[in-house]
C-alpha cells in the first residue's frame, strides 16, 4: 500500500487550483476578529494556523491569541496551555498572561493562587490617591485627587520625571500610553518617554470626566462626573458617543473587559457591577459581596475578565470572576494599610496605593 503511495502519487504533481491563505494571513484575520469581539471566528483561524503551520512564527502569535480568548472565557487551564505554547514559540509577552491563567486555574481548583502579602514598591507622597494604573511595562501611574496630578513610577519603584497636571481621570492603553481627561479634552501621554501630550478628542458633554477605560479594541470609555452618562470614543472619532444615560445609576469606576465585551461599570448607587457592550447593551455582572454595608469605590480588571473591587468602608479588595463569584480577598489589617486605589497586573498581581500614599504590590 505504501509503495503505491510513494510510487503512484509522485508522478503526478498538479498545480494548485486556489491559493490557500498563509499562516500570516490567517493570523492577521484572527487578530482582526478578536478586536471586533468575534472571538469564535478568531479562535477558528488561530487554531488553523497552529494546526497547519505549528513551526511557523505565526503559530506563536496564534497560540497567544487562543490563550487570550480562553482566558476571557475563564477556561484557565486551556488558556495556560496555549500561552505556554506561545511563550515557547517566542511570544515572551504571553508570560504574564500564562501566570494569570495558572493562578486562575489554581483558584478554581482550590489550590491557592491567591494574592500574597503586599510589599512596598514606592512611597508616592500622594495625599489622596484617586486612581492607580498599570502599563504593560510595569510602570504605574498614580492620580492624586487633591492636586489632580498624575505621577508615574517605573517598575522598580523609581519615580519618573513625567508629571501631568489638571488630570480628572486616566486610563492605560495596551501600547503603553495613557489616555487622560483634562479640561474638556482627552489627551494621549507617554509617561515613560515624557513626550508632550497629544490631543485625542473632545470630551463633549462628558466633561468633566470621573472615570476612563480603554477596551481591547482601543475604544475609550468615559463616565461623566455625576456618573449618569457613559460614553464611548471609537478610535479616530472626534468626540464620544453616548452609550448609557441613567439617573438611577452612579457609574463611578470603569474597567475594560476581554475583547468584544466592552467595559465593566461599577454602579456605586446600586452596589453592583454591570457590563456594557460596544453596542450599549447592559448586563448585570454581580452583586457586590458587602451588600449595603459596603461602599465600593474602585474597580480594576485583568485580561481574563476578572474584576477587583475595593470597598472603602472595610478596606477590603475582592476578586470576582465574570460570573460574580468571589475568587480572592485581600483585607487590610489596619486603617493605615487600607488601599485607596487599585490596579490588576497582567499576571494577576494586585497593585494598590494606601491612604498614606504607599504604592504596594500583592504578588
Amino acid at each position: 500500500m505504501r509503495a503505491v503511495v510513494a510510487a503512484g502519487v509522485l508522478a503526478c504533481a498538479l498545480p494548485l487550483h486556489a491559493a490557500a491563505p498563509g499562516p500570516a494571513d490567517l493570523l492577521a484575520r484572527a487578530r482582526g476578529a478578536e478586536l471586533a469581539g468575534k472571538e469564535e471566528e478568531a479562535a477558528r483561524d488561530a487554531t488553523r494556523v497552529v494546526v497547519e503551520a505549528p513551526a511557523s512564527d505565526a503559530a506563536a502569535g496564534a497560540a497567544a491569541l487562543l490563550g487570550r480568548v480562553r482566558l476571557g472565557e475563564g477556561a484557565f487551564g486551556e488558556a495556560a496551555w496555549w500561552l505556554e505554547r506561545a511563550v515557547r514559540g517566542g511570544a515572551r509577552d504571553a508570560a504574564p498572561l500564562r501566570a494569570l491563567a495558572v493562578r486562575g486555574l489554581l483558584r478554581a481548583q482550590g489550590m491557592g493562587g491567591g494574592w500574597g502579602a503586599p510589599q512596598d514598591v514606592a512611597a508616592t507622597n500622594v495625599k489622596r490617591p484617586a486612581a492607580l494604573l498599570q502599563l504593560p511595562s510595569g510602570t504605574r501611574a498614580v492620580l492624586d485627587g487633591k492636586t489632580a496630578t498624575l505621577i508615574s513610577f517605573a517598575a522598580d519603584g523609581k519615580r519618573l520625571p513625567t508629571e501631568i497636571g489638571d488630570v480628572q481621570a486616566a486610563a492605560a492603553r495596551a501600547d503603553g500610553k495613557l489616555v487622560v481627561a483634562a479640561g474638556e479634552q482627552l489627551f494621549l501621554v507617554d509617561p515613560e518617554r515624557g513626550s508632550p501630550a497629544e490631543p485625542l478628542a473632545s470630551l463633549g458633554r462628558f466633561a468633566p470626566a470621573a472615570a476612563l477605560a480603554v477596551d481591547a479594541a482601543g475604544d475609550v470609555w468615559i463616565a461623566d462626573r455625576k456618573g449618569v452618562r457613559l460614553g464611548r470614543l471609537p478610535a479616530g472619532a472626534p468626540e464620544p458617543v453616548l452609550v448609557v444615560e441613567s439617573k438611577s445609576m452612579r457609574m463611578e469606576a470603569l474597567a475594560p473587559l476581554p475583547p468584544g465585551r466592552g467595559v465593566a461599570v461599577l454602579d456605586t448607587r446600586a452596589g453592583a457591577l454591570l457590563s456594557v457592550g460596544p453596542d450599549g447593551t447592559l448586563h448585570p455582572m454581580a452583586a457586590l459581596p458587602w451588600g449595603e454595608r459596603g461602599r465600593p469605590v474602585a474597580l480594576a480588571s485583568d485580561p481574563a475578565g476578572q474584576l477587583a473591587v475595593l470597598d472603602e468602608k472595610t478596606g477590603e479588595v475582592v476578586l470576582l470572576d465574570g460570573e460574580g463569584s468571589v475568587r480572592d480577598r485581600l483585607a487590610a489589617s489596619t486603617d493605615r494599610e487600607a488601599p485607596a486605589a487599585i490596579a490588576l497586573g497582567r499576571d494577576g498581581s494586585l497593585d494598590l496605593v494606601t491612604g498614606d500614599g504607599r504604592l504596594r504590590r500583592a504578588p
Partner: protein
Amino acid sequence: MRRVLLLLALLVAPAAFAQEDPLAPARAKLESAAFEQALRELDAVIARADLAPEVRVDARVLRAQALVALGDTKKAEAEWTAILEARPGFRPEPAAVPAKAMKRFDAVRAAKVGTVRLDLDPKDATLAVDGKPAVLDPDGTLSVLSGAHTLRAERSGFDAAEATVAVTAGAAVDLPLRLSPNARSVLVQAEPAGAEVFLDGQSVGRVEVLAEGGAPALLLRDLPLGEHAFEVRLACHRTAHAEELLNVDLLDRAPKHLGPFRLERAEGTLAPSGLDGATLSVDGKSVGVLPLQPFVACAGTRRVEVARGGRRLWAGTVEVHEGEPQTLALTPRPTLAVAGSDPPAWAEAWSVETADPPPEGVDLLWSEGEARSPQFDVVVTPDDPLLSGPPLRGKRTIGVGLADADPWGTARIVRLRKDGPAARAGVRAGERIVAIGGKPVRSAKEAEATIAAASEGALELTLEAAAGESRKVSVTPAVTPLLLAPPPNKPQAALRLAWAAAEAAARPDDVAAAADLVLALAAAGRTQAAVEAWRSRTWPARAGISKETVAYFLGRALQATGDAASAGKVLAEAAASRATAESDDGPAIAPAAKSP
C-alpha cells in the same frame, strides 16, 4: 680410463645451465674427454676482459682439472696457486684428482694458505675477511692466505665483533670471536589461538599452536632492549596488557616468555526496540527478526544493521559495554551514500554508506558538498536544519498539558485529557509534576521530554498540589501517534518527502508515518497526489489522531485542488469531531475545520 670416466660424470651435472654459462662449451669438451680442446676454450674465456672474477676463478678450476687429466701437474700447480689467491678455502674434489696430484696440491696450499680455528659465538653469525664475505670450511675452520687479516662477525641481536689475526702459511691459529647480545627474543603465549599481538601499538602477528599440545604462541625475534608494551587482542575478549622491560641475560639466551595470557570473553547485552518485522544483524551476522529479546553481543564497537525487504532502515556503530544491558532504540534513518568526499558532520544522524555505486534504497547522496535525493530528485543544501537530525517519531504520553508560570511553579498540569493515563490514575489539573521516577524535573518542557522518551512500563510521578504537599502516583504512559510539523520551505519539503517515504516504508502499519508521507506530499505542492493518498487507505476511528484528522487535511488538499464541494463535506466531518492534530494531546481540529 676409469678415472677419466669418473671425471666426465662429475662434469655432466653443471650442464643444466650451459645456456647461460660462458664455461658451457669448455664443459662440453671436458664431457667428451676433448681435454685439449677444452683447454683452448678455457684459455679464450679467461682472456676475456669482461669476465666476472668469480667466473674467471671457476674457469681456472676447470682448467686445472683438464691439466690434471692431461697429466700436466706442473701447469696445474700454477692454476691452483691462482685459485687459492682468490679462494683460500679451495680444495679439488678428491674423487676427481689422483692421490699424487692431490699431494702436489696440498704442497701448493701449504705454501700459501694458513688456517684460523675460530671460536665463534653465536655459531650462526656471518663472517667477513678483510671486508669480503667468507664462509667456514666444512671442518669449521677458516682458510686464509698467509699474512695479517681482519675478521668481522655480525648477527642480528648482537653487536658486531672484529679481530685482526696474523696467519702463517701451512699453520693454524686459534681466534675467539664472541659477539655481545643487544636484543632479546620474546615468546608470547596466549589463548585462544588467533589472538593478535601488538607490540608498542603495532600489530606483529597472531599466536598459533607451534607444537602439538603446546599453548598458542608467537615468537618475536630480537626485540630491542628496553621497555615495551604488549597487548593481546581478540574480538569478543578482554584485551590483555603487559609492560615488559627487556634486558640481556648472558647466561640465558633463550627467548623470554610472556604469558600465557588467557583472554576472557567480554560481552554485553543489546536490547533493541522498534522496526518490528525487520532483520537485525551485528557485524554482518543476522541475529533475528525484530522484535527480539535482549541478546548478548561482543563488547566493543559493533556494526549494527536493520533491514527489511532488502532495504536498510537503520545502520550504525554501537559501543557495547561489557556486562551492561544497553537499549537500542531503532528508528528508520535515510541511508546516505557518500561519494567523492568525506561524510559531512551532519551525516552522523543518518545511516552512512560509502559504497560505490551506492546501494539500492539510498535516500540521499552526498557528493562534493551537496546532498541529493535520487528518489525524489531534490537537492538539499548542507546547512538545511533538517539535516542536523532526524525528526522525532512517536512519543509516550500521559494525557496532560503542562505549563510553567512563575511564581506558581513549573510543570503545572493545566490540561488533563479525559480518559487519558494520568486522569485514570487520579492525577488532577492544577497539580504540578516535581519529579518523574524520582528524578526532579525543572520545567514543563523537561517533564514532557522525559515522559515522551520513557521506556515501556509505569512511571512514578511525584505531584505537588500545594506548596509542601506532595504525593506519588503511578501512571502507565500510552503511545500517541505524532504528526510532524510541515516543513517551512520548499527544499525542506523535498527532504521531508524523502524522509517520510523512508519512514512509511519502515513502518507499514504506522498511521502517523503514512499520514506524514501524505502531509509531506501536500507540503511539497503535490496536492492532487496527496488527495489520492489520503483516500487510498482506511484510516482508524479512534480518539485523538484519527480519520477525522485525516479528513481535515484531505479537506484542505481538496480546497487546494479546487474541489470546494468535496472539501466542504470532509471538513464538516472534521468540524464535528473531537479529533486532534500533532498528537492525541494536540490542538483540537474542529475549530480549524470551521475556518473558511
